[in-house]
C-alpha cells in the first residue's frame, strides 16, 4: 500500500491537471496517450505450413478483445494483424512495418520458433514491448533473452523435460525409442526428453528422424514395428502429426506401442480433431489442455464460437490477450514507461487460461503448470485431451543453463 500511494497520487494530479487544461490549450501528452487507441500488432502465420495454427491464434486474440468490448484499461484497442508466412525474413519485415510505420504500442504473436528468434533483434533494438505467443525456442529464455520480450508460453524444454520425468516414472525404464521432425524444434524436444530420461536412469534405443513435411512414414513405421519398443517419444506438428498418427494406425501400431509426445503431436484443435480415434490412448505434456480447470469457461466459449475444442494456438492467442490486459491495466493504460510496465508484469502472476502465470525476472519467461494429457473419449465420443497429472510451476533453467 505504501508503495502504491504516491503512484496513484501522481496519477490523480496528472488527470486533474489534464482536465483543467484541456479546454484551454488542448490535451497534454499523458492524457492524449490515454485517449488514443491502444495499437496492438499481431504477427502470425496466415499462409504457409502453419496456416491453420495462425487462423486459430488470430481467432483466440480476437475473441479475447471482443469479450472485453474492444477496450483495455479504458482505452479502445486497434488490432493490426500481419502474416509472416512462417518465414523469418518475412516476419522481420512485418515487425519493422508494425513498429516503424504503424507505430504500434505492443507487438505480439509468432508461431514459428525460427521467426521468433529472427525478430528478437528487431524488437530489442526498438525497445518494443513484445509478447511472443507461441514460438518456443529454448534460446529465447536463455542467451537470446531480451529485456522487453515477454513470453507467455512454454519453452520446448518444459515439455521435453516433463515428458522425460513422466516416461521414466510411468512408462518404463527401458524399451524407449524416439522419432521426431528433423528441424530445430524437433531436435530440442527430443534432445531435452532424452537428456532428462537418461538422467533419471532410463535407456534410449534407436532414434529416428523424419524431414519436415514428410509425406510417407511407412518405412519408419516398419522400422518401429521391427524394433518392437515399449513406448515412443515423438515430436511432430501440424500436417506431419496428422499423417504420423493416421499412418501409425494404418500400420496397426496405435494401441500396440504407447506414444508420448510434445503437446503439438496431440493438439486438440489442429491434430486430434483431424485424426479422431487414431489419437486415442496417446499421451502428451503440454502447457495447455482444454480440460484444465483454468480453461473451463474458455473451452466452452471457444467451442461455441468455432465449433471445435481449443488447441494450443487458439488458447495462446487468448492468453496473450490476457497478459497484455494485465500489463496495460497494471499501469492504468499508460505504456510510456516500459520499465514500469515490466515491473508491473513481474510483480505478480497473471491468471490465464493456461493456468497461473508468473514471469521469471531473469528472462521474462512464463513459469507454467505443465499438464500430462491423455487422449480419452469425451462426451459424444470425441477424443479429448484429459489432464491426468499436473507438474506445478515448471521453470526453464534459464540463462545459466
Amino acid at each position, binding site marked *: 500500500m505504501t508503495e502504491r500511494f504516491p503512484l496513484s497520487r501522481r496519477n490523480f494530479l496528472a488527470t486533474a491537471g489534464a482536465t483543467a487544461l484541456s479546454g484551454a490549450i488542448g490535451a497534454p501528452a499523458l492524457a492524449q496517450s490515454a485517449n488514443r487507441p491502444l495499437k496492438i500488432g499481431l504477427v502470425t502465420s496466415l*499462409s*504457409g*505450413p502453419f*496456416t*491453420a495454427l495462425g*487462423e486459430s491464434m488470430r481467432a483466440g486474440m480476437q475473441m479475447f478483445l471482443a469479450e472485453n468490448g474492444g477496450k483495455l484499461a479504458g482505452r479502445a484497442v486497434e488490432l493490426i494483424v500481419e502474416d509472416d508466412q512462417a518465414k523469418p525474413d518475412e516476419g522481420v519485415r512485418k515487425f519493422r512495418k508494425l513498429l516503424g510505420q504503424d507505430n504500434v504500442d505492443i507487438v505480439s504473436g509468432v508461431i514459428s520458433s525460427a521467426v521468433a528468434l529472427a525478430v528478437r533483434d528487431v524488437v530489442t533494438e526498438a525497445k518494443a514491448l513484445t509478447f511472443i505467443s507461441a514460438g518456443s525456442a529454448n534460446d529465447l529464455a536463455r542467451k537470446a533473452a531480451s529485456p522487453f520480450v515477454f513470453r507467455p508460453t512454454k519453452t520446448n524444454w518444459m515439455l521435453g523435460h516433463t515428458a522425460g520425468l513422466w516416461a521414466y516414472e510411468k512408462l518404463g525404464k527401458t524399451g524407449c525409442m524416439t522419432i521426431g521432425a*528433423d528441424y530445430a524444434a524437433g531436435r530440442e524436444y527430443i534432445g531435452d526428453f532424452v537428456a532428462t530420461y537418461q538422467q533419471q536412469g532410463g535407456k534410449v534405443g534407436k532414434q*529416428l*528422424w*523424419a*524431414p519436415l*513435411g514428410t*509425406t*510417407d512414414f*511407412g*518405412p*519408419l513405421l*516398419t*522400422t518401429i*514395428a*521391427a524394433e518392437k519398443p515399449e513406448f515412443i517419444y515423438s515430436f511432430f506438428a*501440424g*500436417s506431419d502429426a*496428422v*499423417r504420423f498418427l*493416421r*499412418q501409425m494406425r*494404418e*500400420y*496397426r*501400431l496405435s494401441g500396440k506401442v504407447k506414444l508420448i509426445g510434445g503437446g503439438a503431436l496431440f493438439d486438440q484443435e*489442429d*491434430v486430434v*480433431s*483431424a*485424426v*479422431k480415434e487414431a489419437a486415442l490412448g496417446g499421451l502428451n505434456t503440454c502447457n495447455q489442455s482444454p480440460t484444465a480447470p483454468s480453461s473451463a469457461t474458455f473451452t466452452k466459449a471457444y467451442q461455441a464460437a468455432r465449433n471445435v475444442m481449443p488447441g494450443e494456438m487458439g488458447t495462446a492467442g487468448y492468453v496473450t490477450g490476457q497478459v497484455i490486459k494485465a500489463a496495460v491495466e497494471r499501469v492504468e493504460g499508460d505504456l510510456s514507461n516500459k520499465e514500469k510496465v515490466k515491473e508491473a508484469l513481474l510483480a505478480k502472476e497473471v491468471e490465464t487460461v493456461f493456468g497461473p502465470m508468473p514471469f521469471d525476472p531473469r528472462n521474462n519467461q512464463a513459469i507454467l503448470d505443465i499438464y500430462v494429457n491423455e487422449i480419452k473419449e469425451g462426451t459424444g465420443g470425441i477424443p479429448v485431451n484429459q489432464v491426468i497429472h499436473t507438474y506445478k510451476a515448471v521453470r526453464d533453467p534459464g540463462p545459466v543453463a
Partner: protein
Amino acid sequence: MGFYAVQSLNALSFSMLLLLTGLGLSVVLNLMNFVNLTHGSFFLLGAYVGVYWLASGAPWWLAFPVAFVAAGLAGFLLERFPFRQFYARTHLMQVLLTYGLSVIFADLMRWGFGAQILSAEIPEALRGVVFIMDMPFPIYRLFIIGFGAALAFALWFVIDRTIWGAVVRACVTDRGFVETLGLDTRRIFTAVLVISAGLGGISGALGAGILSAYPGLDEEVLILALIVVVAGGLGTFRGTVLSALLLGFAMTFSKVWVPEFSNVVALAIMAALLVALPEGLVARKVRQV
C-alpha cells in the same frame, strides 16, 4: 526378410503415389508440350472432394470417379479460357500463367474448404492390414499400388497402342497436317487437358487416404510431381514411370538406412541423374515452341 519385404512394398506404394502425382502433369507435358503448374491444385481439389465424399456415407468407391469428374471439369473450364491461348507460347509464359492461377486456386480452396487439416475416412473394406512374416502392411497401400499400376498401364496402352493415342501424338508433331485430315485438333487438346486434370483429381482422392488434405498440399505435391517428371525426361511417358520407381525406392530406403539424410539422398540422386543424363532417364526429342 519380412522387414525388407515390407520395406520394398513401402517403396512400391510410395513410388505409386509419386507416379500418381506425376502422371497427369506428364501427360500434358509430353503430349501437348504445355507446362501446367496448376496440377497441384487439381490434386488438392481431388483430395478435398475425396475427403468429403468418403465422409458423406455415399458409396465409397464412387469418390474416385467423382474426383476425376470434378477436377476434369475444372480443367475443361480452364482450357476454354486461358490455357488455349498459351499453347503456342514459350514455356516461360506458360509457367507464369499457370503458377499465377495456382496461387488463385489455393486461396479459393482455402476460402471454400477452410484452413483445417482434413483426413479422409478410409473405407472399412480397405482399412485392414496384411501380415508378411509378422510385419504389418496396410491394405490401402496395396490398393494404391494396384490402382496406380492399372492407371499407368491404361494410359500407356491408350497413348502407345491405340489410334487415339496416335492422333494425339500426331497433333503435337504436326498440327496442321492433322487438321488437313479433317480432325479438330482443338477438341483433341481439350480432351487431353481434361484427362490430365482428371488424373490429378483422382490421384488426389486416392492420396488423401495417406496424405490428408490441407492448404499447402498443392505446392508439396507439385514439387514432387515436377521432380518425377523432370528426372524421368520431358516428353516421355515411360520415363515418368521409371523415375517414380527410382525415386520412390531411393527415398524409402534412405529413410530406412539414413533417415536424417533422406531428402538429401533423393535430391542428390535427381541432381546426379540430370547431370549425367540432361534429358532425363528416357530422352526424346521435344519440340521447343
